[in-house]
């Protein structure tokens, strides 16, 4: 078709194409306008060319952009993937940090609710909230052992457990502190006049300098009030204001709590 047209006209088809594509210099362009305005056939040909040009442009915009978008999309997808992974990891890290920080609080509340059963002596559960700890702070293990009874065989077992625990830490060269808190009848263990385990207590004190025996002042006061007796304690036993207060304080300080 081009060939046919160009035969009829003085302007070559390359020239006309260049004109339609707007690739002519200003001077050539004005010449083209001149020629086209003077020739009906030329005018029609340019019109045809324009249509063709527009069609190609149209097809071009339809096809070409997707292909370039495709390439970009891959790059974008890759980048998005990497960024998403980073964000996901960051989110997980944040989540873990966040939940670790607030975890003990919620679990404590839940446990309190759950451990409420009957309030009779038998079913009474000892519930102890465990405060959040900072793991990096100290590797020292701190254990408070609470004794409230004076049944001889139970005390035997308790002292055996305490000794076992101290050996456990010593064998592993793990720094540890163990405190035995007595109140109520448990205090009898540490009374000079009533203790059936004075020798054992002395032996443990001698062997382990990280072991402390403590007696409750409230209990001592009560015995004085009710029995008019000033209690003498075994050597090396310390007196604390209140057994229960000591238990709470120690747990706030990160101590573990045990009733053996």
């Amino acid at each position, binding site marked *: 078709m081009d060939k046919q047209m160009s035969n009829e006209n003085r302007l070559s088809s390359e020239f006309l194409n260049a004109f339609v594509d707007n690739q002519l210099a200003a001077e050539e362009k004005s010449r083209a306008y001149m020629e086209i305005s003077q020739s009906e056939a030329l005018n029609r040909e340019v019109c045809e060319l324009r249509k063709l040009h527009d069609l190609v442009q149209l097809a071009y915009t339809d096809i070409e952009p997707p292909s370039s978008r495709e390439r970009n999309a891959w790059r*974008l997808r890759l980048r*998005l993937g990497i*960024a*998403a992974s980073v*964000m*996901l*990891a*960051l*989110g*997980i*890290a*944040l*989540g*873990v940090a*966040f*939940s*670790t920080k607030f*975890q*003990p609080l*919620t*679990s*404590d509340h*839940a*446990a309190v*609710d*759950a*451990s409420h*059963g009957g309030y009779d002596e*038998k*079913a*009474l*559960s*000892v*519930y*102890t*909230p*465990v405060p*959040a*700890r900072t793991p990096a702070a100290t590797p020292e*293990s701190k*254990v408070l052992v609470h004794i409230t009874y004076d049944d001889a065989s139970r005390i035997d*077992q308790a002292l*055996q*457990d*305490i000794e*076992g*625990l101290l050996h*456990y*830490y010593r064998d592993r060269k793990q720094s540890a502190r163990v405190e035995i808190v007595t109140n109520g009848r448990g205090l009898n263990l540490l009374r000079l006049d009533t203790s059936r385990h004075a020798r054992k207590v002395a032996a443990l004190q001698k062997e382990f300098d990280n072991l402390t025996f403590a007696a409750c002042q409230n209990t001592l006061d009560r015995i004085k009030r009710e029995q008019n007796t000033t209690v003498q304690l075994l050597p090396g036993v310390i007196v604390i204001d209140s057994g229960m207060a000591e238990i709470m304080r120690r747990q706030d300080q*990160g101590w*573990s*709590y*045990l*009733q*053996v």
Partner: protein
Amino acid sequence: MNNLKSFTIALMAFLTLGFGASLAQAADKQHKAVYHLNSKDIETQQDVLRNAQNHLDAIGADKMDLRIVMHAGGVSVLRTAKTDVDLQSKIESLKLKGVRFEVCKKTLDRGKIDFKKDLYDVSEKDIVPSGVAEIALLQEKGFSYVKP
């Protein structure tokens, strides 16, 4: 410009997703409790099993890491369970909900107890070197102490 915007939105979505996922993961085992069982009294032993069951029901077993640490007289609950079907089913029910029964090695050694022969359903992984130390250790890891 539009691309950048959706890109940022997508990133924030992933951040939230990660945060939420890990939070949910942590929340799964948010509640940790160690039950201390050292009594040879069968009623106290039954109390421990019942309280643990109630505790799980209240919180939801999927959200709890619950351990029952046995030493001294407490180990006898597993000896009794060898021949007590009712006790077995209580223990099984707890184990199905993920409860771990930890047995003190010191107690086994002292009492010359063969956990494979003498105790109900105890394997190597259930043995801890010291029951008392294990209870202290678990508290260091954030477990609440419960002694029924």
